């Protein structure tokens, strides 16, 4: 039965293909069929269905079962450049851009036998927390109609939650994997900065951007990370550390693990359900032999303002290349300056323009010291907070977001309230640490809520193990009713 195939988790599908119980074609077609029926979610920007089916058939003719993703179909966030497949970054300015090259992360997936079935919607240049800034329109959260799927990896979170792909990948600059995972009841991991190569990923804020997996559960997440994370000489910030066999090493034994609870994360006005969820997580840790330790991350309050200086500063420079000269959208102008102004005014959306302006401002002479330089110093302090904490604990447990998913349009005209959504995720990017969000419960509206486990740099295995233990004890169930399929 087709519908059963899409209910399977990634690791199960891999197993069934390896045991020849399913073919790559069967699996690929099943996810494509379901994707076709799910247009209402608007999760895809570009489809690669025909090509994917061809590739699946080729795989079946000469299957290589040693691969970690043997003929597995997968849809990816449209921020990853994919050779010969349109890559838009959710922007009009790249509406017709078809790369001649493959990002390292997607290449790793292809090398392990994965088949790209399409490119998933996201906030324009990954700037947003609700997927509402995409030039290609809103994405529906499969949890409930007119609910945002989070952002910026909103197409990815929607697609994985709705089972349009057995696993997916996103990018996380300030929470863009973990927040949408939390909003859709799925698992999302942001690896340590330097773990996954940034080569071929459309840049938002280079010192913060990291690619990571988004999956149904921690096992699938471990497998995906194993594939995605490689040392890459094409990215000067890629780090050559010993990468684990995350899936093989996965275990739920957290006995003796010291888990920190940062008091600064108990923010005013946080819904009661989230507090309760956090308590639930703490209880599980204790019951499984973990040790809970109260810690302090004193500069947490400064994380959001710091982030909204550093990220736009880098973005304002990173996005300068979209000028209409070499590729992408170009508007006609009277002269060079006029062409630039028209191209960029018409090619970028409001949120992107807002951040370019903020970024340009904070880097301007006379303001640089007061904003950018100060922010870099605070960023160092935030990192120091974590370094101090990790002298006492192995990992840190917090909620993923201060609220559950909100309605489409609810926060669109209130950027600050939108930015506040990332309050628990942003400090981790500033410190360059790994963190995973796992579904842990529902609020009273029935919307999913996530818990975040933050690890030491390059210690993804520990947070995967802790998340694995939490997952087993929580046994979260996503109440998704396929409401969008007639």
């Amino acid at each position: 039965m087709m519908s059963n195939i899409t209910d399977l988790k990634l690791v199960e599908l891999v197993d069934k293909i390896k045991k020849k119980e399913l073919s790559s074609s069967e699996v690929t077609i099943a996810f494509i069929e379901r994707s076709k029926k799910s247009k209402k979610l608007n999760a895809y920007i570009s489809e690669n269905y025909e090509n994917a089916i061809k590739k699946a058939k080729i795989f079946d003719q000469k299957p290589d079962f040693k691969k970690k993703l043997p003929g597995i179909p997968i849809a990816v966030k449209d921020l990853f450049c994919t050779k010969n497949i349109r890559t838009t970054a959710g922007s009009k300015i790249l509406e017709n851009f078809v790369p001649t090259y493959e990002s390292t992360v997607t290449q790793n997936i292809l090398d392990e036998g994965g088949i790209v079935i399409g490119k998933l919607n996201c906030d324009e240049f990954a700037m947003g927390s609700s997927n509402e800034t995409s030039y290609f329109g809103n994405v529906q959260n499969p949890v409930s109609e007119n609910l945002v799927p989070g952002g910026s990896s909103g197409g990815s979170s929607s697609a994985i939650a709705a089972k349009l792909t057995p696993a997916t990948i996103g990018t996380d600059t300030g929470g863009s994997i973990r927040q949408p995972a939390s909003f859709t009841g799925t698992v999302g991991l942001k690896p340590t900065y330097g773990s996954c190569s940034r080569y071929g990923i459309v840049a938002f804020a280079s010192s913060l951007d990291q690619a990571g997996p988004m999956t149904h559960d921690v096992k699938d997440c471990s497998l995906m990370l194993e594939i995605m994370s490689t040392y890459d000489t094409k990215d000067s910030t890629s780090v050559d550390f010993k990468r684990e066999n995350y899936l093989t090493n996965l275990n739920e034994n957290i006995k003796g693990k010291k888990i920190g609870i940062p008091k600064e994360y108990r923010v005013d006005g946080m819904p009661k359900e989230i507090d309760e969820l956090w308590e639930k997580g703490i209880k599980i840790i204790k019951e499984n032999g973990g040790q809970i330790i109260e810690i302090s991350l004193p500069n947490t309050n400064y994380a959001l303002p710091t982030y909204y200086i550093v990220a736009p500063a880098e973005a304002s420079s990173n996005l300068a290349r979209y000028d209409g000269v070499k590729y992408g959208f170009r508007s006609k102008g009277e002269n060079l300056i006029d062409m630039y102004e028209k191209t960029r005014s018409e090619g970028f959306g409001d949120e992107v323009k807002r951040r370019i302006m903020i970024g340009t401002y904070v880097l301007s002479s006379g303001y640089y010291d007061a904003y950018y330089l100060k922010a870099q110093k605070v960023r160092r302090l935030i990192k120091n907070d974590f370094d101090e904490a990790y002298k006492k604990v192995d990992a840190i447990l917090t909620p993923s977001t201060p609220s559950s998913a909100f309605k489409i349009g609810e926060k669109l005209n209130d950027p600050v309230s939108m930015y506040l959504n990332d309050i628990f995720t942003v400090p981790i990017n500033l410190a360059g640490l790994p963190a995973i969000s796992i579904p842990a419960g529902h609020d009273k509206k029935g919307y999913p809520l996530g818990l975040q486990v933050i690890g030491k740099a390059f210690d993804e295995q520990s947070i995967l193990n802790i998340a694995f233990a939490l997952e087993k004890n929580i046994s979260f169930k996503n109440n998704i009713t396929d409401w969008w399929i007639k």
Partner: protein
Amino acid sequence: MSKNNGEYLIIRNDNKYEVIIGLEVHAQVLSESKLFSTSSTKFGSEPNTQVSLVDAAFPGMLPVINEHCIKQAVKTGIGLKAKINKRSIFDRKNYFYADLPQGYQISQYKDPIVGEGSVTLDMPNGEKNIGIERLHLEQDAGKSIHDIDPQNTLVDLNRSGVALMEIVSKPDLRSLDEVNAYIKKLRSIMRYLGTCDGNMQEGSLRADVNVSVRKKGDKKLGTRCEIKNVNSIKFMQMAIDFEANRQVDIIEEGGSIDQETRLFDTKKNETRSMRSKEDAHDYRYFPDPDLLPLELNDNYIDQIKKNIPELPDEKKKRFIEKFKLSPYEANILVSDIEISKYFEEVSKNSDVKLATNWITGELFALLNEKNIEITESPISSKNLSKLINLIKDGTISGKIAKSVFEIMRDGDKDPITIVEEKGLKQQSDPKELENLINKVIIENPKNVEAYKSGKDKLFGFFVGQVMKNSNGKANPKLVNEILKKKLN
């Protein structure tokens, strides 16, 4: 303008003005590939054939430092006797232009790879040290071409991303001659090191020139103007001369100088305002987050230091001490690495003094006449040293050597073969020479008498006759000796 005592002063209404010059030289790093990509840097290729995805700033493309360029910058720093900074940072210099694909230039701003150093100039009045402020690495931009298509500007990105060293001098230069000597010395040092080919026609060496003037004796520097992108020493001198006079005229009329960026129009021989200080770009420099700070350890720097070849200043010293050359001769021979190499090859196997004279005399005249470099010399160092040895051992005279040289210049023929084939060997057999001399004495009895009665000057006449009768092959030294004996 006055050049008394080598001073360059501008005089107006009895006021003497000193000209203060600082140079920012952009030297293209000698490297097969670009600073942050693997594209070729070959000059003169078809437009846009040496452009990688990184050079064209495609989405998601990242710069990766070319280690060779780092080494070249460190080498150059050592050649400039400068401080090598163990930690340097690449920054983004943000501005929009059609031939700048990233929308920013990767450069080094606050933390350059090389700090303060100095360059020694040999001026007629003695040595002068010019301070080096810093050397930093940066990417070159592409080229906008405005004159091919009537409607559009075309862009060639071959040069985009090519590594440049920007070498900033202190405002220590005071004359056009010093500018000339400074550029030549800088070029010479880099060519010795193999870090820049110094080819100004191909744009491998260009400079931004900072000029200000002040009344002689004043301590405070005047307001400076920067003249952008001048690509030959001659144009630099013309631009400075025009600009200094322009500034003096303004001051003499009671005005003041506005700090601004100016352009030099080579056709009209004048500088023109490009933008004022108020219109100056805000480049919004910040550390490039795609690149980590560049950290060099002592071992790395020491290894490079160990392999630094002998540089012009040291070579000059050695030539003077070892070969007893005059400072003037030494200067000429070390001014260019290829000349010094040629000289050392020739003098290795032949007389140093003769080698010096033949290279700076006959050979340079030949190269000048043909307008070619010493590397293209039609006469190899090996054959020139053979020629010198033929003179030294008396096989041929200096005069015959000149005619042999004339034959050698067409096809680098072995001088020994030429001498044999043409029978140019010097007659040094005393008996044969005696016969020749006797013949001349017999044929010119009147002159012999005149000589003996005191007309000493006639001695030359007899030598000339002997040489003529021997077709120039008689050994002049021996002829002199024998003739003297015979006549006295």
